């Protein structure tokens, strides 16, 4: 694993490359947007930890405000890291399958307010059995598929049946409904509102049907970064699962109120007449299915090839770049990038202010 840690107080030119940097001013500005948006709303932000994987940074958003003092995670192992980091309210947004993982979940639920998503009866029944054996209570939310074709119930009736079962099972506490959604490509504000509301309404339809059957629904967790300002305007939504907004990434640049705060600092290690070679390649940047990163502030540079440990950039026009020069690389998918690194280097006004371990890095669920 990476062992490099620069001195706190070092200037940015002393940081060895490639390194994953967070511009603290920009990240805090992103956190401020959330704090202001949710300052007077019943609905609050539940920041998604899968993008950051570091409790100390997630705490920063909780301190700045706008949240319900909890986070969501994608898996049990991530939830454990959050609880160990002092965050007491965690929603796991995936189904948890297999006895080992369910036991870890049940034990974690004895230590903190941990809840999990479900979408089928078999999974719910096994969660109940494990929780009974361990003597804990697990909160559950029904995942509703609104548009993505992933996990989640497909019909309102499935949701009602599942809620009824959850209500009847020992060691299970039925809490509500949850959904994910996304919009493709560039989305203007009007599109975000129309699409965001359409998806969230599908989730709310399940909530209403469950309530019509006499079952209380206390949590409606819906909305993401693209709909962070849509969800609080919709009655019934209690929390939003935003993650991307913290560091941002290329495809969501259309949300101009948020700034790209997470970048990879890289060095030019070779130049030709028309090309620049940098010391960051696929292993540290990622390039899922050929989607390449961009280079900040240099519209005349584009990624030509990505190799394991270096990338070749093509220069449009005269090549002004020199060996030793540093560049900032902006990723196409922030959480894939973050998962490849062992630490963040927090920089403010060109000076290293913090180094954080990405303690929930890893593959296991």
């Amino acid at each position, binding site marked *: 694993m990476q062992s490099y840690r620069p001195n706190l107080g070092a200037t940015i030119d002393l940081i060895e490359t490639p390194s994953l940097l967070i511009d603290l001013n920009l990240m805090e500005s992103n956190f401020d947007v959330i704090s202001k948006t949710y300052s007077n709303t019943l609905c609050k932000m539940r920041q998604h930890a899968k993008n950051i994987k570091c409790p100390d940074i997630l705490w920063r958003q909780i301190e700045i405000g706008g949240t319900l003092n909890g986070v969501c995670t994608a898996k049990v192992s991530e939830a454990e890291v959050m609880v160990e980091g002092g965050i007491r309210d965690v929603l796991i947004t995936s189904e948890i399958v297999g006895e080992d993982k369910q036991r870890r979940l049940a034990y974690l639920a004895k230590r903190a307010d941990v809840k999990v998503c479900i979408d089928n009866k078999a999974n719910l029944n096994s969660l109940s059995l494990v929780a009974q054996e361990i003597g804990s209570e697990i909160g559950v939310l029904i995942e509703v598929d609104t548009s993505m074709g992933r996990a989640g119930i497909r019909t309102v009736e499935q949701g009602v049946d599942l809620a009824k079962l959850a209500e009847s099972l020992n060691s299970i506490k039925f809490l509500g409904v949850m959904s994910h959604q996304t919009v493709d490509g560039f989305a203007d504000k009007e599109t975000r509102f129309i699409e965001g509301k359409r998806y969230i309404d599908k989730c709310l339809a399940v909530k209403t049907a469950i309530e019509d059957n006499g079952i209380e629904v206390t949590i409606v967790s819906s909305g993401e970064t693209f709909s962070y300002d849509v969800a609080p305007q919709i009655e019934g939504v209690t929390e939003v699962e935003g993650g991307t907004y913290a560091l941002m990434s290329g495809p969501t640049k259309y949300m101009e109120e948020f700034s790209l705060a997470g970048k990879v600092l890289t060095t030019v290690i070779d130049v030709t007449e028309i090309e620049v070679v940098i*010391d960051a390649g696929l292993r540290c940047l990622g390039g899922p299915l050929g989607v390449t990163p961009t280079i900040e502030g240099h519209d005349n540079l584009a990624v030509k090839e990505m190799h394991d440990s270096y990338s070749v950039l093509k220069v449009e026009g005269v090549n002004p770049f020199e060996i030793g020069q540093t560049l900032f690389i902006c990723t196409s998918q922030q959480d894939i990038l973050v*998962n490849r690194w062992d630490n963040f280097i927090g920089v403010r006004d060109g000076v290293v202010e913090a180094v954080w371990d990405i303690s929930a890095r890893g*593959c296991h669920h």
Partner: protein
Amino acid sequence: MERPTSKPTGHHHLELDTPALLVNSKLLKSNIENAKSYLKDTSCKLIPNIGTHGAAGIARYQTNFDHEAPVFVDTLQQAHSFANNGFKNIIIESPPVGTGKVESLHRLVNTAHVTISISNLAHLNMLKHFSSENLSALFRIPNKSDSIGVGTHQTLLELVKLLEEHFEINWKGLITVSKGSDSLEESFKEILSAKSFLQSHSFTSNELLINTSNQSLKKAHANLPSEITGLISGNYPFEINGYFPVCSVVSTVMSTPEPGRAYIDCGQKAISIDRGVPSVVNYPNTVVEKMSAEHGYLVFDTAEMNLEIGDKILLRPANYSDTFNLYDFINLIKNDRLESVIETTARGTFK
């Protein structure tokens, strides 16, 4: 870091905490021996690119536990990681650009013999304060498949002269990178031409190295010029060997929301799709439709088969190197059982 629930040796590989990276140790060793046999009647040596997997435990098999055998890595930080694990003869692809990397190289040459690939005067000048028998340089020669390297023969000659006359490090020879089997013969031609030019000016390249793909390794066997002293390759231990892949990721079905669709706990954070979507090994009529950061989405024809929650799915990565880099541990499997767990010692050593 990884937090799998540990399983004892002898546990069935499909019952490991998922997603988990598996390497079939028997097939791995068989591939390593096969690759060595390609070159056994030649004077050319096979130099493993151990940066591909980053695991000292696998690299030791590749070098027959000979720590003096040459190995190839991508970065200085990888070289440090392997030097700390006893490897003493390391070739590094990336030149040490920047003060921090030069200092890092100074530390490294105290513990291992290091050979650096360089392409220009700026790279060479970064080595000017070294005075060490433990440091050697190779000049990188471009070819049609790879634009990086010393631009002209004349420039190459000047760099070699400069190094030989004014630097206190060794000049070892030349290296070129052949990207794909189609470019292999072209690469031979370019490096031999550079060698001849230097020879005509009384400079002898002791080493002529080709960094090449796995496919090229087999092809090289048939057409290898006798002057080539080393072939560098990374993926050969993991080449498909029979029905089961040498390297795979085991995952679990988490949801079956619709007939013909299954949702698994292996997404882009557990298997790289940087160079393609993985294939399903143990359910041949099932394909990976897409992968999100955390999950994979499988589709299959319900007339032929079905998948249920809890079923185990073996996936073969489209690219091994990118996937090894995601895991802290590799589960070595023998006869479907866990044989041992080894560390991906150089994971994340990007610098």
